[in-house]
């Protein structure tokens, strides 16, 4: 057993790490869904933009400045998207808002294509995070080890915010009932803005961790992690934060176990890596057939 773990440690490590990155993105999907019943298709692209912003800022600024700026600009981007593309449609049918979200997604990708000229941009090597470490014989980067801990810490902070602060209470109220929240004096637009800003902040943190591992950013870099984070949110029961986090870790770990299939299951073949995404999704579908509302999902509570 110890031997087996030892041999395949790198797969488990990267599974936990990428799972943490998906989790940070997935929280943005699930929170926005919780409050607006909207699947924010642009969220993965906000994540990609955070990556590009880092590429451009770090070329002329020291990391101590560019990292905080990336967080700020991404939060601003999330705020502006909600303000411009979703708020005017507040009383429109949900389908229209969804189409608006798809539009924003393409706008961000097109803008990225315009600025990068379609070339993959090399992501800067962040000090410390991209250093190599050897853990129990497996070589990996510091970021792999840091990600799960940072994710856990941020999730705890977010949970405290939602459970124990006034704004958190307002978020819970607004996600249940717009009108009654308004009767309490809550300005729902403000609460919705804050929700988008928190989601974007976490996506920006995820981008720092993710792109440090992947080393380059393209205009479509947000699609796959965005999609997986979205699936994680659905898998965990969309609207539930713990669900999204656990779902994301399960996806990240599954994906990497399948990638390591030839050594973990002892069945040789070159298809393991190629098909890892398909297998991961197939696995999720099976679980969703058994439990349609996801791991932590409530019975479909639709807004009246």
């Amino acid at each position, binding site marked *: 057993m110890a031997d087996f773990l030892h041999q395949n440690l790198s797969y488990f490590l990267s599974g936990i790490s990428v799972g943490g990155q998906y989790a940070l993105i997935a929280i943005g999907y699930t929170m926005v869904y919780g409050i607006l019943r909207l699947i924010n298709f642009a969220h993965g692209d906000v994540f990609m933009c955070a990556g590009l912003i880092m590429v451009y800022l770090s070329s002329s600024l020291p990391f101590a400045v560019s990292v905080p700026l990336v967080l700020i600009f991404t939060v601003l981007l999330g705020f502006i998207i909600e303000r411009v593309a979703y708020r005017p449609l507040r009383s429109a049918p949900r389908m229209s808002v969804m189409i608006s979200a798809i539009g924003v997604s393409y706008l961000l990708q097109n803008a990225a294509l315009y600025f990068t000229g379609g070339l993959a941009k090399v992501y800067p090597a962040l000090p410390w995070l991209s250093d190599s470490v050897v853990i129990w014989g497996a070589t990996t980067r510091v970021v792999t080890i840091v990600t799960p801990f940072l994710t856990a810490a941020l999730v705890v902070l977010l949970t405290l915010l939602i459970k124990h602060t*006034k704004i958190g*209470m*307002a978020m*819970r*109220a607004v996600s*249940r*009932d717009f*009108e*009654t929240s*308004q*009767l*309490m*004096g*809550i*300005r729902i637009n403000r609460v919705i803005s804050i929700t988008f800003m928190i989601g974007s902040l976490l996506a920006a943190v995820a981008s720092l961790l993710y792109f440090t591992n992947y080393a380059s950013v393209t205009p479509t870099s947000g699609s796959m992690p965005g999609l997986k984070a979205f699936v994680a949110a659905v898998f965990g029961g969309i609207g539930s934060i713990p669900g999204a986090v656990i779902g994301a870790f399960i996806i990240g770990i599954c994906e990497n176990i399948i990638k390591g299939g030839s050594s973990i299951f002892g069945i040789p073949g070159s298809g393991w890596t190629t098909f890892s995404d398909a297998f991961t999704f197939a696995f999720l579908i099976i679980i969703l057939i058994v439990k349609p509302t996801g791991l932590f999902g409530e019975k479909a509570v639709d807004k009246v």
Partner: protein
Amino acid sequence: MKFRIISVSSMRIWGLLKMFEIKGLSVNYGGIEAVRDISFSVEEGTIVTLIGANGAGKSTTLRTIAGLVKPRTGKIEFMGEDITGKDPAYIVGKGITLVPEGRKIFPDLTVLENLKIGAYLRKDNIEEDIDWVYSLFPRLRERSWQYGGTLSGGEQQMLAVGRALMSRPKIMMMDEPSLGLAPLVVRDIFSIIRKISREGVTILLVEQNANMALQVADVGYVMETGRITLTGKGSELLVNDAVKKAYLGK
């Protein structure tokens, strides 16, 4: 809890205090005229009731005052200020609160959180008010940590009233507080309404239970298909033949 202690009754005699004035209010939903050119006023410290059949436009009137619905025409004045078309948060801040039809407790907030959220706009200390609400409704104190959704209908109505009081309202609007409650609980609710009124909170009460409502009310208005058709003292309307026939089932 300290409300105003100026002598409301003496000012009422002189007709000085029209706390609340609705002038020519009309509200449309799409093509439907739900409220048609109604005017009425509420004097400070009184209990005023609005009775009428289903669909008469009572809820619409209250929701418009609360700022949830924008009127087509007309004016809403509160203590001399025009508050027509202002957003709900502004209106709550002015001291106008609505206990909505169907109670609308937040089911996944605890009883205590439901009370706290009622005081959302307040920046001062609310401990005293929580205590006051708990003394009005001792059953809520026992259930402080229970989720709102797990309360009985009567308890939810008490919580809805308590939550509204947490904003320290000058006027509390209540939309059918007796709906779906057992007669004994209805009596409790109405005695609480009297008690709150004695504490100096003005009350605008919408009810299907015309009998109970007119008994507590100083002034009553009867609404029919969007219009106010009859006005009088509560005690007068109770013995009015038309009201008796239509709303009191006598």
